């Protein structure tokens, strides 16, 4: 036995196993210690990562001096303990346990080819048919993702521990008793009718296939396994694709990444069949001359109606020619350039980097942006202003070190599901959660306090909290003195914001505001997490300023379990921003007005000095506006879908339709692509290799697992080809099929290494290191630096190292309800659908769970409006109208409407207000005034 495996500094515990001297680490189970000593005992209820339950009794051993056998999974050796695993007494007991379980569940290998029960039955010599079979219980096939076969269930409760203790979803339980004990969902409801959110943690935990993927993927071994990262949100879960003999992803398993430790959500586990959709684009497309761009007819179009197929050469030539023509028509460059580009936060860092480099060099403009503008631009603006950096200060999993967590304007249970599991885990261990959100979302059940404030009144609530902290002397004066400036301004500003004055504005009782403010300020460690409920407002920057002030004046930053964490929405919004896919900055947030930064980039990119402009480019909404006016005539869009994601979508669609030249790289014919002149078929996430940076600043490696369909090519390859046709002599040698190697000198690795040369934050993370380690958190200064999950420990990247406190002004939403539009519309995501739904709505499981758009209403509001659950409602704003069925949801506040924006057939963004936050230029997607009424009623009265 090798004690080098033991944790350092821990004194090993010497005991005797089967007559041999063996050492265990303190706290290590007998089962694990025995295994390290080469004695492998059967185990079914024990599984790594789950609390030991000790119920199956398959691992029992003799401990000298004890009357009965002991479950080795639940016992830790003590010094001098004498253990025997090899006696007939112990071995027979283990074999009989396996025989009993085999009698109960005789046919598990048909469900799970590598059934653990069958394995251990073989290992222990269990005789089949030794005991009478149990009565059949039957299957539950009610869920689209998972099949339940209780005849294969051995009541080991791994699924229950996975559902409840790991994921905190609390759907599975063990009901009844004795021989009738069985796993149930909710109140013994069919799984498909239960509150199950289909994270599939139970599937991953089940040793017998009693809960298994509904597609039968566990019945046979996978041909190939590839480790990668999930593309479906900013958490950045690591996963393993299991690829079958037909080259398709048969199922997906969570693996031990730093952000997820093996956990996944419904999208990551069951949502990958979008890559195999028959709707995938297979060949380049060029618009047919007889197919005019109609911005009102873009939903799920058949490409044959609008385009003809073309070769890659023809399509790339056409794409480049269009840009050359646009640039040739005017000498204007910089902000006034006729060309702009939207990159993507869904691609890799390398793709984002190449894209911004292409726009900046080939098109001579900083008019390059991406959906960060629509998610955290205001947060980043406030963070840059206050702290000198837009990154999160602490990783999400730091909630486990926090005594209190303030979660505001975020719904991680739906949008960052695995992130939410860490919050629920922390709560279970004693962390107090304050949930502030107009909607009473899933986490409210777990919250210590829930503050259901009025939509748009964030600043009133937060300034009142600041007032309490200042007025009651709960600030951290030493921290303020050492690390901040302009406290006086905030102190003076919040003086008028008494809880009594703000209560009518935000709808929260003064005492509740006081209680939460005191708890936050006096907690040993308090962390703030926020989402788009904070940022997507015309006052988004003000909201973030208030949160920053809250953290700074109480000294709740710079330590584990404290700090500021804006939850990034898309899988690579952090990395795409880092890579410079932003009009104001070059890679690593070097401002374009910083001459030395421009010089560095020009030198690296072999540009003539002075090529790069000093003036920031246009942002997403500004670019659309310029296109609408005709100032921008050509656009390159990579993997973005502004026709769905931009506010006032009718306006955006008209702008896109009006472009002389629109080139779209995507995997499907998105609503935006339907308005393109040239469509270039790209590779899906599992079809390419590249790096990606999650919300925690952790850089991870996505690996190619399957081939792309038809002639689809990697986005990075497409960008390189375009660049060459636009006169840039790029020679990375990027593989067209999206594959990569560990070589940093060529291909995608070479792109990364060039990018790293402009990014001090990842200076210590070479491509070979990333290839080897798979996940490293920046800042990382050299190869030996393990990376820094917590930053701002010694101050801030600001003058004198001091953070700047900025008072948050009380700015009302740009459009308030009135008699004509009396309700407030909030838009956002659903658990099953990501962004504009282009991927997830083409996943069979995700589509089956959430197949169509809904408008969620509080029951009382619905009743008042004459709308029953399921009735068709017409929702109208000053900008447009859509019709969709009603979902009655008690989590909704009165007179408030929620519509997910993933559905083209009822696109929520046809309604939203493009009013911008003045600093972050983010649109107010979380608030506009609407009218809701029965659709039939309006038709009748019309």
């Amino acid at each position, binding site marked *: 036995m090798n004690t080098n495996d033991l944790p350092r500094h821990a004194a090993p515990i010497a005991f005797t196993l089967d007559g041999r001297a063996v050492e265990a680490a303190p706290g290590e189970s007998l089962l694990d210690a025995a295994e390290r000593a080469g004695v492998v005992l059967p185990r079914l209820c024990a599984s790594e990562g789950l609390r030991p339950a000790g119920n199956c009794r398959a691992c029992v051993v003799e401990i000298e001096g004890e009357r009965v056998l002991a479950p080795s999974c639940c016992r830790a050796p003590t010094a001098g303990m004498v253990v025997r695993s090899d006696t007939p*007494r112990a071995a027979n007991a283990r074999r009989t346990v396996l025989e009993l379980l085999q*009698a109960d569940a005789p046919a598990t290998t048909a469900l799970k080819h590598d059934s653990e029960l069958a394995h251990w039955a073989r290992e222990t010599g269990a005789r089949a048919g030794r005991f009478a079979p149990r009565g059949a219980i039957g299957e*539950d096939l009610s869920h689209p993702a998972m099949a339940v076969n209780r005849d294969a269930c051995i009541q080991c409760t791994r699924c229950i521990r996975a559902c409840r203790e790991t994921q905190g979803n609390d759907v599975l339980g063990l*009901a009844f008793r004795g*021989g009738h*004990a069985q796993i149930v969902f*909710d109140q*013994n409801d069919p799984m498909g009718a239960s509150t199950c959110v289909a994270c599939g943690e139970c599937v991953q935990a089940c040793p017998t296939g009693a809960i298994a993927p509904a597609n039968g993927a566990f019945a046979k071994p996978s041909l190939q396994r590839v480790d990668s990262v999930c593309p479906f949100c900013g958490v950045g879960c690591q996963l393993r694709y299991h690829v079958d003999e037909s080259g398709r992803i048969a199922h997906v398993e969570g693996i031990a990444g730093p952000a997820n430790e093996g956990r996944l959500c419904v999208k990551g586990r069951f949502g990958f069949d979008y890559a195999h959709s028959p709707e995938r684009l297979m060949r380049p497309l060029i618009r047919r001359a007889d197919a005019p761009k109609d911005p009102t007819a873009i939903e799920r179009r058949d490409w044959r109606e609008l385009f003809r197929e073309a070769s890659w050469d023809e399509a790339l030539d056409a794409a480049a020619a269009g840009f050359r023509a646009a640039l040739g028509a005017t000498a204007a460059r910089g902000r006034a350039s006729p060309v702009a580009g939207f990159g993507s936060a869904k691609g890799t860092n390398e793709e984002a980097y190449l894209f911004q480099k292409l726009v900046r060099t080939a098109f001579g403009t900083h008019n390059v942006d991406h959906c960060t503008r629509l998610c955290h631009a205001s947060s980043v603006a406030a963070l840059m202003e206050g702290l000198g950096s837009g990154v999160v200060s602490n990783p999400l999993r730091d909630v486990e070190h926090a005594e209190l967590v303030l979660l505001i304007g975020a719904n991680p249970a739906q949008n960052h599901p695995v992130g939410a599991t860490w919050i629920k885990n922390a709560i279970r261990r004693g962390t107090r959660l304050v949930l502030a959100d107009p909607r009473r979302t899933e986490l409210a059940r777990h919250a210590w306090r829930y503050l259901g404030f009025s939509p748009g009144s964030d600043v009133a609530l937060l300034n009142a909290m600041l007032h309490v902290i200042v007025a009651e002397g709960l600030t951290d004066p030493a921290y303020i003195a050492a690390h901040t400036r302009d406290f006086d301004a905030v102190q003076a500003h919040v003086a008028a914001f008494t809880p009594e004055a703000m209560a009518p504005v935000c709808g929260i009782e003064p005492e509740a505001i006081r209680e939460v403010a005191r708890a936050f300020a006096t907690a040993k460690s308090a962390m703030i997490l926020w989402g788009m409920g904070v940022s997507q407002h015309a006052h988004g920057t003000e909201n973030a300023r208030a949160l920053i002030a809250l953290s700074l004046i109480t000294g709740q930053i710079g330590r584990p379990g404290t700090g500021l964490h804006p939850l990034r929405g898309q899988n690579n919004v952090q990395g795409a921003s880092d890579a410079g896919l932003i009009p104001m900055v070059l890679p690593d947030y070097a401002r374009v007005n910083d001459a030395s930064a421009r010089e560095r980039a020009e030198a690296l990119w072999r540009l003539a000095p002075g090529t790069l402009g000093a003036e920031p480019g246009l942002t997403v909404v500004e670019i659309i506006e310029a296109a609408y006016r005709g100032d921008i005539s050509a656009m390159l869009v990579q993997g973005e879908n502004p026709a769905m994601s931009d506010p006032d979508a009718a306006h955006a669609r008209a702008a896109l339709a009006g472009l002389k030249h629109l080139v779209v790289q995507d995997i499907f014919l998105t609503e935006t692509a339907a308005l393109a002149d040239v469509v270039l078929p790209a590779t899906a996430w599992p079809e390419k290799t590249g790096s990606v940076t999650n919300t925690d600043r952790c850089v991870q490696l996505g690996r190619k697992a399957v081939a792309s369909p038809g002639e689809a090519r990697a986005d990075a390859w497409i960008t390189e080809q375009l660049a060459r046709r636009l006169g840039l002599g790029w020679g990375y040698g990027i593989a067209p099929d999206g594959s990569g190697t560990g070589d940093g000198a060529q291909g995608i690795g070479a792109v990364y290494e060039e990018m790293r040369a402009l990014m001090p934050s990842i200076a210590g993370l070479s491509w070979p290191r990333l290839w080897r380690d798979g996940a490293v958190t920046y800042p990382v200064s050299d190869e030996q630096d393990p990376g820094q999950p917590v930053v701002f420990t010694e101050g801030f990247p600001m003058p004198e190292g001091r953070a700047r406190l900025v008072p948050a002004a009380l700015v009302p939403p740009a459009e308030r309800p009135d008699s004509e539009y009396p309700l407030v519309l909030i838009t956002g995501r659903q658990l099953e659908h990501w962004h504009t739904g282009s991927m997830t709505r083409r996943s069979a499981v995700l589509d089956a769970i959430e197949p169509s758009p809904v408008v969620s209403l509080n029951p009382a509001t619905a009743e008042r409006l004459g709308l029953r659950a399921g009735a068709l409602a017409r929702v109208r704003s000053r900008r447009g109208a859509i019709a969709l069925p009603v979902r009655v949801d*008690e989590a909704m506040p009165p007179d408030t409407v929620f519509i997910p924006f993933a559905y083209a057939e009822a696109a929520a963004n046809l309604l939203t207000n493009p009013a911008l936050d003045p600093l972050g230029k983010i649109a107010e997607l979380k608030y506009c005034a609407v009218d809701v009424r029965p659709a039939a009623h309006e038709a009748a009265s019309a």
Partner: protein
Amino acid sequence: MNPPHDTRAVIPIRPLDRQARGAARRTPKGRQVAPAARERVAALCAGLEPRPDLLIEHLHRLNDAEGALRRGQLAALAERLRLSQVEVYEVASFYHHFHVVDDEAAAPATTVRVCTSLACAMAGGEDLLARTREALAGRADVAVEEAPCIGQCHQAPAACAGQRQLPQATAESIVDHVARGETGPRQLPHPLPNDLAQLGRLLAGDLTPEGVIAELKAAHLRGLGGAGFPAWRKWDTVRAQPGPRHGVVNIDEGEVGTFKDWLVLSMGAPQVLEGVLVAAEVVGLDHVWLYLRDEYHDLRPMLQREIDALAPRLQALRERFPHYRPPRVELRRGAGAYICGEESALIESIEGRRGLPRLKPPIVAMNGVFGRPTLAHNLETLWWVPELLAQGGAAWAALGRRGRHGLRRFSVSGRVNRPGVHLAPAGITLRELVDEFAGGMQAGHELRAYLPGGASGGILPASLADVPLDFDTLAEHGAFVGSMAVVVMSQHDSVRDAALNLMRFFEMESCGQCTPCRAGTGQLVRLMQAPRWDAERMDELSAVMREASICGLGQAAPNPVDSVRRFFAPEVGL
């Protein structure tokens, strides 16, 4: 045995017909809480703190009012307690006395439970069950159920109509009570008063905590719930643990044939409470829960009254002794589960969960209620504490026979003339117990076999009627006295049938947590019905259950089988 108490949801064999594409769910996922259910639950649970650990108390409110637990109300209750639905449902479906039904289902106004455990079965319990079912067949508002031992073995056959315990029940007496609506708990006479004299001595300093423990030691007082652990050692262990420390009084006697605790409490509840207060003072307990089995409906109001009556007296003591901090004493109601007599299962139940025994180590003394060090005692053990302090432990110890110490309460049932609770010397033999205390064998009955300790303690033949009965004395015969539940059988009784009855009891009462007990009890029930028993398979099952079960239930469950094979082999073809 009974099916699990639930109208099972029908799980479709094929996928649910999903609504055509384009139709989304009309509500968020899963069952939603209807406003009417929310209001009803709020009204029924008024005055109960909405804490998860009080889940079972909440369930009783709903079950008592509605005759069953309605799914819609369970969803509302989950919301109220901030639990998930499954956290409520798995508890509701665990306990015999709860019935989950659909919202619109008819629920019985009265549930009649007829005991068919051994003593009652010997007195015609099965027949009573059949005749009661027949007599009430037309009554949709009455449900008739088979019940495991309800603690009236000396008045067999016994039944319970609603909350009315009915000794020596007949189908007619049951129907009469139901017809007259006499289904509430029966009234009990006042128990013997108690003047808290020993507690007073302790608070005044006339008696030291060490002195108390010394008396327990001198008395050789052992835990009388079945395990027989020396009381003084338990007190010493818990006392040495860091605070806060808690206490639990186990009034969940469910061992087949045991009914002594009912008697002790009905006569001496105040003395039990004094024992609790003395223990709390000596060991330093700040919170003590009394967990009362639900079958003892008559004891519940009485015990609550006695607990309430303590308050002014404790207040007076606090005024006399300003340093005195009496513990919080709380009564909790079981819900029908033999396993909750196991102390760690009982603690799980107190915390509002299914009664699943915990794995040991850690022991309850170190890790009990809410993870705190806990002194857990059977109530009779505590009843003796003031008694011993008054008369002296050594004097009490001298009352035993054959070198055994003190007195024991034997619950005697079966073929004797005077079944009942008999206070007899420890170490008495079965023959002495029957002859000196139980009035001898009934006419026409000769001793053939006896259970020295209920369902778990094994079955001994008449040839072993002269061995002393006490803790440890029966081990060589593969038996134990446990809670001293003695069931006497004669030549007219089938030992084979008795053993099967006991095994069915274990199968029904197994919590289902560990494989050996969950699967083993059912397999043994099957094997025991063969004309000729399969010795080899039974050996394997017996071994795995004894050696590898989590708790005493599974470890002792093979005893009836092993006893029959050892002492009555010809009856089973061996």
